[in-house]
C-alpha cells in the first residue's frame, strides 16, 4: 500500500490507528476515579505527544541513519517557532503559511549550520552543533530581544499582541491560530458513561501532519538515499574508496531532519502562539536525543514512543502531590499510610526528575534497543508461549534500520 512493503504498511497502519484513537486509549480511566490523574487524553498533552513525535522522527533520520549525533537540534525547533509566530504577528493566524514558513526557515538555518558542522564528525560534530544551538539560545534570550531590535522578546517569549499588524486577519476569523477558520483550540468532548474523551482540532491537525511526516520517514528509510545514509554510518571510509562523497548525503539528511524540527516548532506555535527561548536550550536538544534512544534508535516507531514516554512523565508525574498520595493510601491504617506516602514522596511531584532519571538508567541498562526492544521481547515471549518459533518474523513490530 502507498508504495510500502507489507511490514511497513502494517506498521504505518498501527501508527495511524494509534494517533486516530489516541483520545480513547489515552483516557482509560473514568474521569472521576482516583486514577484519572494518569489520563493523558487532554488536548495539550496529546498535541505535545505528536509534535515531539515529529521532532524525534526527524532527529532519527539524522542520528538513526547516519549516526551523526547532533546536540543542537532544539535550535531548529526554536527557530521554527519564532518563524511561525512572526507570520502570526505580521500576516495571518492561518497556520498553513506559518508552518510552511517555519519549515523553510528551519531548513535554511539547518543548511547553514549543517554545512559548517558536517566538516567534522564524531564528537567534534556534536560539540559544533551544541555550540551553535547554545549561541542561538543565548542570543534569543537576551541580545535579540533588546528594545531596538526585538526579534525574540527574550525571557517572556514571542507572542501576538492586539496591536500587531496581521494584514490578512479578518473580523470573522478566530483570534487564535486556525486552519481556514477552524480554531486550533476547538475541542469536542464525548462522554460515554463516566468516561470523557477529548477530540481537539489542534490535535488532529498535528496528528495528520505527523502521519504524513512518518510516512515520509518510512519512504526515506527504504529509499536508495536511506541506504546511502546507512552506508555513511557503517563505514564512511569505504564509501570514499568507492568514489562516493558522503557529505552531500549527510548534509541532505541534516537539512531534512532540521526541517522536521522546524515543522515541530511551527506546530508548537500553532497550538500555542508563544515561542520561548528555552526550547532552544541544550537541555531541550538533549531531550530529543533521550527520546530517540529511549524509544529505539534507528527504528521507525521508536522515536514516537520515546517522545510519548518523556512527555507523559513531565506532565503527569510532576502533578502528583502529597494530598493525592494520601488519597491513594487512605485505605491503609494511618501509620502505614504515612509510611507509604513517605516512601513514595521523593519520586513524585518535585521529585519527578528522579523517577525519570532512574527509568532512563533502567531502560538503557536492560534494553539497549530502547522501548522497541522491550516490546519485541514481550512479543517474542508471548509467541514462544504460544509454541511458535518466533525468529521468522521478529521485526514486524519494530523494523529496525539495520
Amino acid at each position: 500500500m502507498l508504495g510500502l512493503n507489507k511490514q511497513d504498511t502494517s506498521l504505518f497502519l498501527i501508527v495511524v490507528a494509534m494517533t486516530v484513537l489516541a483520545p480513547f486509549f489515552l483516557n482509560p480511566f473514568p474521569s472521576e476515579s482516583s486514577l484519572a490523574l494518569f489520563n493523558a487524553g487532554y488536548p495539550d498533552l496529546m498535541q505535545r505527544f505528536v509534535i515531539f513525535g515529529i521532532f524525534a522522527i526527524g532527529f532519527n533520520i539524522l542520528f538513526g541513519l547516519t549516526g551523526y549525533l547532533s546536540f543542537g537540534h532544539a535550535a531548529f525547533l526554536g527557530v521554527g517557532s519564532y518563524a511561525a509566530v512572526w507570520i502570526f504577528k505580521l500576516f495571518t493566524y492561518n497556520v498553513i503559511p506559518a508552518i510552511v514558513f517555519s519549515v523553510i526557515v528551519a531548513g535554511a538555518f539547518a543548511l547553514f549550520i549543517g554545512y559548517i558542522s558536517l566538516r567534522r564528525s564524531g564528537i567534534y560534530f556534536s560539540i559544533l552543533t551544541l555550540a551553535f544551538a547554545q549561541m542561538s539560545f543565548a542570543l534569543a534570550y537576551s541580545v535579540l530581544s533588546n528594545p531596538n531590535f526585538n526579534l525574540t522578546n527574550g525571557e517572556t517569549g514571542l507572542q501576538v499582541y492586539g496591536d500587531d499588524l496581521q494584514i490578512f486577519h479578518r473580523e470573522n476569523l478566530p483570534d487564535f491560530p486556525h486552519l481556514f477558520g477552524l480554531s486550533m483550540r476547538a475541542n469536542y468532548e464525548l462522554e460515554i458513561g463516566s468516561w470523557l474523551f477529548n477530540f481537539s482540532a489542534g490535535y488532529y491537525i498535528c496528528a495528520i501532519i505527523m502521519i504524513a511526516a512518518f510516512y515520509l520517514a518510512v519512504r526515506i528509510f527504504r529509499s536508495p538515499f536511506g541506504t546511502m545514509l546507512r552506508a555513511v554510518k557503517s563505514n564512511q571510509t569505504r564509501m570514499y574508496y568507492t568514489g562516493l562523497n558522503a557529505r552531500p548525503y549527510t548534509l541532505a539528511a541534516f537539512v531534512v531532519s532540521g526541517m522536521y524540527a522546524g515543522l515541530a516548532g511551527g506546530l508548537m506555535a500553532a497550538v500555542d502562539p508563544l515561542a520561548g527561548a528555552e526550547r532552544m536550550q541544550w537541555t531541550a536538544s538533549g531531550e530529543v536525543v533521550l527520546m530517540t534512544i529511549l524509544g529505539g534508535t534507528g527504528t521507525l516507531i521508536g522515536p514516537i514512543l520515546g517522545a510519548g514516554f518523556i512527555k507523559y512523565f513531565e506532565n503527569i508525574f510532576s502533578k502528583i502531590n502529597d494530598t493525592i498520595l494520601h488519597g491513594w493510601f487512605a485505605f491503609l491504617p494511618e501509620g502505614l499510610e504515612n509510611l507509604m506516602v513517605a516512601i513514595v514522596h521523593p519520586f513524585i511531584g518535585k521529585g519527578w526528575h528522579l523517577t525519570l532519571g532512574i527509568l532512563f538508567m533502567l531502560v538503557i541498562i536492560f534494553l539497549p534497543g530502547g522501548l522497541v526492544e522491550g516490546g519485541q521481547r514481550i512479543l517474542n515471549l508471548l509467541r514462544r508461549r504460544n509454541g511458535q518459533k518466533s525468529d521468522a518474523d521478529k521485526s514486524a513490530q519494530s523494523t529496525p534500520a539495520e
Partner: protein
Amino acid sequence: MSKQNLTRRGLLKTSAVAGAGLAVPTIFTAQSAAAYMNEPTGSTVTLGFNVPQTGPYADEGADELLAQQLAVEHINGEGDGGCLNTFTSKALQGNGILGKKVDFVTGDTQTKSDIARASAKSMIEKDGVIMVNGGSSSGVAVAVQSLCQEAGIIFMAGLTHSNDTTGKDRKANGFRHFFNAYMSGAALAPVLQNVYGNERRAYHLTADYNWGWTQEESIVAYTEAIGWETVNTVKTPLASTDFSSYIAPVLNSGADVLVLNHYGGNMVNSLTNAIQFGLLDKEVNGQNFAIVVPLYSELMATGAGENIKGVYGSMNYNWQLDNEGSKTFVQSFGEKFGKPPSNSAQTCYAQVLLYADACERAGTFNPCGVVEALEGFEFDGLGNGPTLYRAEDHQCFKDVLVVRGAENPTSAYDTLEIVDITPRAQVEYVPNHPMFGGDEASLGTCNPGV
C-alpha cells in the same frame, strides 16, 4: 482507593447518565454548555497552583505551595482560620467558596515559560481549574497570564517583579499582588539618600533579560533623581556562575556604589563575588563603598549568608512586619510548618484568599465577575497593611519594605531587618507611565472563555 474530589469535572453531567451505561455523545464542547470556562458544577471548586518544583527556584516554589495549601485549609474552615480573622472583608465564612469546598492541583513550571504554560494548560484542560496562582519569575508570569487571558480563567501572578507584568503585558484576567521594579526604586531612593547621601556614583550589574532591564531602568531613574551619577550599566548573561570578570572592572571605575540587578542564584553569586573582591572594605572618593540589591528574598539572603550584612534592598513583605494580619499569618504558618513564611509565600497566600473573597463577593466564579470584584478593591488584614488593587492595570498598591542584612541575627530567620516602611503614596504612579507601556498598554476586556 477511590477519592471523589480529585477530578470532578462534569460530575453532575456524569451522574445523570451513569448507570445507564449508554454512549451519550454531547454535541457541544464544555465551554458552550457552561456560562464560563470550567464552571464548577459539583460540590467542589478546583484551583491550580503552578509553581517551580524543579530547577533553581524549587525551594521558593515549595514555600509557595505550603502557603497555598494553608490558604485552602483556611478557606475550607480547617486549621486556625489564619487571616480570615483579620481580613477586613468578611465575605468568607470558612465553608469554602460559595458553599463549594476548595480543592487544588499542583504543577511544575520549571521556571520556564513554555513548560509553565504546558502545566497551566493541563490544569485548565484536564483538571478544570478556575484560577491559576503562583510562579516565581516574570517571564513565566507574563506567559501564563496571557494563556489565562486566552483561556478565560483568572491568573494571580505570584512572585514577579518586572514592570511589564502589569505594564505593557497587563491582562484583564490577571492580577499581581507582588510589588514591582518601579516601586523598589521609589522606595529605596529616599533611604539610600539618607544613608549614603547625594554625591554617589553608581555602577550597575544587570541580569541580561527582561526583568533585569526594567529594574535597572527604574533604579537608574530614581537614583539619578536624588543626584547620583550612573557610572556604567553592565549586562551579565543569565547563565553566568562566576561574576569575577564583571566585578573586577568595578574596582577601578571610580564608582562608590554597586547595584546588583540580579535575582536568585545570580544575586547570591554576584554578591558573594563582590564581597570576595573586598568591595565593602574599600574607600572611594572619600566615601565607604556600598552595595545595593534592589530586590531581596529570604532564600537569597540564606544563600548569600554573611555577605548580606549591611546591604540594602527592598521586599514585598517580611514576616517581621508588625501588624495584626501579618502576626496572625506568621503564627498560623509558623505553627504548621515550623518556619516563618517567605515573602513569596505570603503573596501566594494572600492571592488565594483574595480570589476566594472576590468570588464570594461577586456571587459567582465567572472570571468577569471576579475581575469586577477585585478591581479597585481596598482591604487590610492580609499582612501588608492597607492595600489597593488598582482597576486600571491590576497592580496591587501597598507599603513597600526597605530592608537591610542584619549585623547580628539571632536565628536563621532574622537575617534581614526592616529599615523603613515606605508608604503607599510614595510608590504610586500613573497607569500610563512610560515604564509601564505608556498609553498603548491596555488590559483588554475580561474573557470568560466561552
